[in-house]
């Protein structure tokens, strides 16, 4: 993959939540907050996990063009203001719903430490919460606005597939 500007790596690695957009059956993109589980800086692949029952999973199967937005969530003035939109092709890995996602759980728990304790409770409240598919995103394009300045043209990195 092409080298990204340093700030783009930081925007991904230092993110807390991000917005994952898939496209519904009515062809409407919809973005929901997720925790990034893993980012491979060499290949650019991003991985999230999602309860297999969520419509997001079927959306990705049927319409694999997706986007992930990294932007400030409002945790304080020291938070970087960078905005990074990653567009890419996603695939669903549902071969091991019980534990396949656990290989990448450390990345999620780093962003949400309470997840280690809350998983069991979430499974009780939301049956199927821990039956999770992996969604792997191979980026096709990175569009970034350093410091969130939309008055400037985005820095664009196209990825050769």
């Amino acid at each position, binding site marked *: 993959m092409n080298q990204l500007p340093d700030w783009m790596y930081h925007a991904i690695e230092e993110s807390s939540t991000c917005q994952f957009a*898939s496209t519904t059956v009515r062809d*409407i993109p919809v973005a929901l907050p997720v925790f990034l589980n893993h980012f491979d800086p060499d290949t650019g692949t991003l991985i999230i996990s999602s309860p297999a029952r969520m419509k997001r999973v079927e959306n990705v199967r049927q319409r694999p063009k997706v986007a992930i937005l990294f932007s400030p969530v409002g945790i304080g003035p020291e938070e970087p203001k960078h905005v990074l939109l990653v567009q890419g092709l996603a695939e669903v890995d549902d071969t091991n719903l019980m534990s396949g996602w656990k290989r990448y759980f450390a990345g999620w728990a780093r962003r949400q430490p309470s997840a280690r304790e809350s998983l069991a409770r979430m499974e009780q409240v939301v049956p199927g919460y821990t039956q999770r598919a992996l969604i792997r995103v191979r980026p096709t394009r990175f569009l970034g606005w350093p410091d969130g300045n939309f008055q400037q043209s985005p820095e664009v990195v196209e990825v050769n597939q």
Partner: protein
Amino acid sequence: MIDWTEELFMQIEAFSRVALSYPGIDGYPVVLPLPLVFDRDKRYFILPIPHQRPVPASEEQVSLTLLHYDEQMKSERYLVLYGHLTETGNEWIFTPSHVVLPRWGRRA
């Protein structure tokens, strides 16, 4: 149709920012973070149009995700609205037509 109850108004006004999603011309979703400005009387959202943004392929196939970061839980609350955009000078008007309450297994 949306049932504009006082409870819904209060829910909307409790969020702090939005993510606007629309299809780009190459079929990839575009998601932009924008400030939340809601006109309670007109029941629409006023969004500043970023000067440099990917062009929408459609102003009808649009959704708006209202977001609020919960510092204690280290997670985000959200509410999704479907609707359409109208461009008026430097602003988009997002008029919602459908609201999705974040209940497990319902939508998205």
